[in-house]
Every structure is written in structure tokens, then in C-alpha cells.
């Protein structure tokens, strides 16, 4: 791959597409690749979960809304994975379909089952607020491509945040049943919040170079935004201890294996095939 005109699309102003990154010829270091892989895996697993709702949502308008959010996430995943893949001469599909479970670097939150609509909204609430804090800082990354992907993603995730807050309010203050379900959904989701904000050697090293965002730095503003939303919905933020996590090291919950089995089955039946 060589430098060409498309590389000029990798700027923070453009509506960046994975195809632009694919032809950019930009090759990240192994470390930057690892970092992009985490962000890409988060978005990919979430997109896979959300896509299930299309044809099953509580109202047709919501089929469309969740479809949009899922598509946004899939778009982010493709951009991050395409870029990460360049570090090891792999494509987005090599990474999505031909890695084994312990090679995935997503946090546990994203692989949690959809549950009922309230549970999905609780997961969306955490995911969108986390991603928004992250991307709004990643925009200034010393790595041009990461910055450009974040610049496109941050606007979309802002909408996801709004969507989840709107539903938090409605379910939290709608009927007795919806309030009970919202509280249950939050309770099921909260153990997976802590892991999102854990720093490790990779993020520490890359943050020092101005490439990555240090997850722990996002916690304060995340908490503030979540607290405000919960207050408006007249709900309490849980204080239960977090689960042990380990997704960034490839240690996953019981759920990811099933998700991957379904996602990868066809591609693996026909290795090397083109679709």
C-alpha cells in the first residue's frame, strides 16, 4: 500500500469511512494497533448485541432507532479494526471473524446480554457515556487516524447518550413496572462499569505519548453525567462492588463465546472465501 490521495481524507473534519482507512496505507505501531483493537472490539460486540433488536423492539420507531445506533457502532468498529489490522497486515474481517475468544479485547460491559429493553437501555447508558467521554478526548490524539475516527464517532455517540437518557427518564418515571425493570436493568449492568476505567501498561504508555486517553481520567465526568441523569429520573446510582473484569487481557464472561460462535460461524465454515 502506498500513500495516495485518499490519505488526505484522514482528517478530523471528514465523515471518515472504514474504506478510507483501508486505502490510506497508514500503519500503526503494534501498541497503537492493540489500543485501536480494544476500541474496535467494544464497538463491534455492542453492535452485534444491538442488531438483535431490529425486528424485535417495543415499537417500530424503536426498531429504527436501535438500528441506527447499532449501525453507528458497527461503523466505528470497522474503522478501528481496519486501522488496527494495518499493524499486522490483517483486514477488519480477519480480526472480527478469525480471532479466538481470548484474543478479543472488549470490556465485559459490551458482551452482556440484551435482557429486556430496560436492561439494554442501562447498558446503552453506560456505553454511550463512556464512549462519549473517551472520544471527545481522543479527538486530540497525537495519532491522526485515531483522532479522525473519534471526531466522526463523538457526534454519533452524543446522540446515543441522548437516546439512553430519554429512555432512562421514561422508564424510571413511567409506570411501576417500568421503574422496577429499569432498576433491575441498572443493577445487572453496574458491575461492569468499573472495568471501563481501569488503566494498564498499554494505556499508560500510550497516554504519555498523547496517543491514548487514560481511562481513569474519564471517571469523574462520567460519574457526574450519570448522576445528573439518574437524579432527573429519580433513581439511585448503585454502589455495589464491580466485577473483576479482565476483558482487556482476553479474560471474558460466559457470554462472549456464544456471541462469537454465532457471529463467526459462516465465515469460518468457508475460510478464505470472499463475500
Amino acid at each position, binding site marked *: 500500500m502506498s500513500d495516495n490521495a485518499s490519505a488526505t481524507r484522514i482528517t478530523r473534519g471528514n465523515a471518515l469511512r472504514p474504506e478510507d482507512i483501508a486505502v490510506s496505507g497508514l500503519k500503526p505501531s503494534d501498541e497503537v494497533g492493540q489500543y485501536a483493537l480494544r476500541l474496535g472490539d467494544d464497538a*463491534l460486540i455492542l453492535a452485534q448485541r444491538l*442488531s*438483535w433488536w431490529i425486528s424485535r423492539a*417495543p*415499537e*417500530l420507531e424503536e*426498531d429504527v432507532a436501535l*438500528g441506527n445506533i447499532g449501525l453507528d457502532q458497527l461503523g466505528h468498529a470497522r474503522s478501528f479494526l481496519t486501522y488496527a489490522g494495518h499493524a499486522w497486515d490483517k483486514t477488519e474481517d480477519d480480526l472480527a471473524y478469525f480471532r479466538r475468544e481470548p484474543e478479543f479485547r472488549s470490556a465485559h460491559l459490551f458482551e452482556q446480554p440484551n435482557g429486556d429493553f430496560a436492561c439494554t437501555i442501562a447498558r446503552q447508558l453506560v456505553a454511550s457515556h463512556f464512549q462519549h467521554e473517551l472520544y471527545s478526548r481522543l479527538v486530540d490524539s497525537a495519532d491522526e487516524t485515531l483522532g479522525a475516527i473519534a471526531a466522526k464517532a463523538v457526534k454519533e455517540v452524543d446522540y446515543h447518550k441522548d437516546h439512553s437518557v430519554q429512555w432512562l427518564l421514561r422508564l424510571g418515571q413511567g*409506570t411501576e413496572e417500568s421503574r422496577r425493570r429499569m432498576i433491575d436493568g441498572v443493577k445487572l449492568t453496574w458491575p461492569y462499569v468499573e472495568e471501563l476505567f481501569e488503566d494498564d501498561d498499554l494505556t499508560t504508555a500510550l497516554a504519555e505519548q498523547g496517543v491514548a486517553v487514560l481511562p481513569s481520567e474519564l471517571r469523574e465526568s462520567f460519574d457526574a453525567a450519570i448522576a445528573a441523569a439518574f437524579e432527573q429520573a429519580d433513581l439511585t446510582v448503585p454502589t455495589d462492588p464491580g466485577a473483576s473484569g479482565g476483558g482487556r487481557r482476553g479474560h471474558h464472561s460466559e457470554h462472549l463465546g456464544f456471541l462469537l460462535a454465532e457471529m463467526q460461524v459462516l465465515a469460518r465454515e468457508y475460510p478464505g*472465501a470472499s463475500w
Partner: protein
Amino acid sequence: MASQNEGLHAVLSEEEQAGQTYFDKIIAEDSRIEPRDWMPESYRKTLVRQIGQHAHSEIIGMQPEANWITRAPSLKRKAILMAKVQDEAGHGLYLYSAAETLGTPRDKMTEDLISGKARYSSIFNYPAVTWADMGAIGWMVDGAAICNQVPLCRASYGPYGRAMVRVCKEESFHQRQGFEILLELANGTPEQRAMAQDAVNRWYAPSLMMFGPPDEDSPNSKQSMAWNIKRFSNDELRSRFVGMLVEQVKVLGLELPDDQISFNEDTKQWEHSPLDWDEFKDVLKGRGPCNAQRMERRRSAHEEGAWVREAAAAYADKQAQKAEVA
């Protein structure tokens, strides 16, 4: 008593007569009827039924393809398929909106669908068992739908025509992506190629049946054409579709499972081997491979969503009350 009532209905009031005259004039001019215009009750009923079936078909039609979103073999295909199935929800919504202008609210249409009173296209009662079915559905099922739908953009009922314009505009990518999937498979490994041919074999006859029964067995067609709702007969559209397939299948390098396709120079129509209308009627009566499954999925999505819809409505009420107090 009953016969007297019927007698009364047969005689139009002065107001109705004026309405009928104006309606006939609009239809004769090939202009558009709009929601608040007077229209014959049978015209309204026909439209509600047709638009309803069309909307239901979009909504039930999401299922066979949605089943493959989580297994799509590449991320690009996954994105395309998600966008397509999502579009179908949108198209269902546009059409329900059009029906709503005729005084039939969506919750009533949904109720009719999940109680089994209303119909949807029988083709969605066939299973999508391989990835190649995503190609065949896009190419053949959406292709047939487009043949049907393009003339409907000029339907005499304004909101229906406008909904169809929007649907057709968005749908243009649906058929192309299906064709592209098949093309990729046809040029792939021998197994992929066999998968593509198998899907084309299975979806060919059902897609031809999408145009409805032969003209001589289609009691509603004549009236719909007289009202400028339909512009072409079932057989005319089917012939046009066969002509399209014949050309396009060559590019795919696949075969249509029909050795009797020919162009009749006299009638200028494409002919094909007879279709199994007994099977069509069977599927219609609920004996298709997936009828129960499709209905159950729609019913459970609707019922399991009830508490969400109620919560949002309750919240809106509370907010409105608060605003009133303030």
C-alpha cells in the same frame, strides 16, 4: 328491515352524489384523491386492505433477513444487511402512516396482523436457510417488489403514492446489494456457487407468485385498475419481471429453474412454466413452512414491548400534568 337498509344504501344522498361525481372526475383526469376528499367506501376499504398488507409485508419481511444479521460473513455485509432490514421497518412505517390517513390507526392494523385477520406477502413464510438467500431475496423478492411498487408511485390515492415514492427511492439499493451477494458467490468457491444456485432455485417460483394470481383469478384487479390504484395487471407485471430475470441471470452465470421461459412475439409477453397455485393457496391458508414462527415473533415483540409503550405514555401524561400545574 335488512333489505330496506340495503335499499337505502343503494340510493346516494345528494351530498354523496356530488362526492361521487367529483371523485369520478378526479379519477378520470388521473389526478389524486387526498385524505379528506369524499371517496366511495369500497375504495377506502380496498386501499386500507392493500396498504395494510403492504405494510405488514414490510414488517414481517424483516424477519428472514434479520435472522442473518448476526451471522453475516463480513462486516461490510453486516452493515448493509442491518441498514436494509432497518429500511424495511421504515417502509412499514411510511405505509402505516398512509393507511392512517384513511382513518385506520396503526394499533388497529397491528392488532389485525397479530390476530391473523390481516394478510402479508406469503413469500415471507419461506425460510431463509443460507447466506445466499440474502442474495436471492434481495435480487428476486425485492426485484419483484420493485416491479410492483414503481407503478404504485402513481396510485390515485395521494398519501399512498407519496409513501411509495419514498419507499422506491430507498429501495433501489436493496435489489443491487442482493445481486451483488449472488454475483460474489457465483464467482466464489464451488460450494459458494452451489449455494447461490440453490437459493435461486428455491426463491424463483415464490417470487413470481408475489404478483398475485393470474389475471383471470384476480377478482379485485379490475376495480383497482379502474380506480388507478393498480396500473398494470398481475400477469403483465410478472411477465416484465421474468424478462428482467432472464437478462440478469446471465450476468450472474447462474440458471433459472425453468426451461419453459420464452418471449411470445405476438403478445409481447414473457412466458414461463405454470406456477403451483395450490401451493400458493396452501401457504395462504397458513400451511407455509414459517407462518406460525413469523406470526409468533411479531406477536411476542409487540406484547413484550407493551410495558415500554405504556411507560412512555404514562411519562408523557405526567409531564403534561406537571406543565399544566406550572
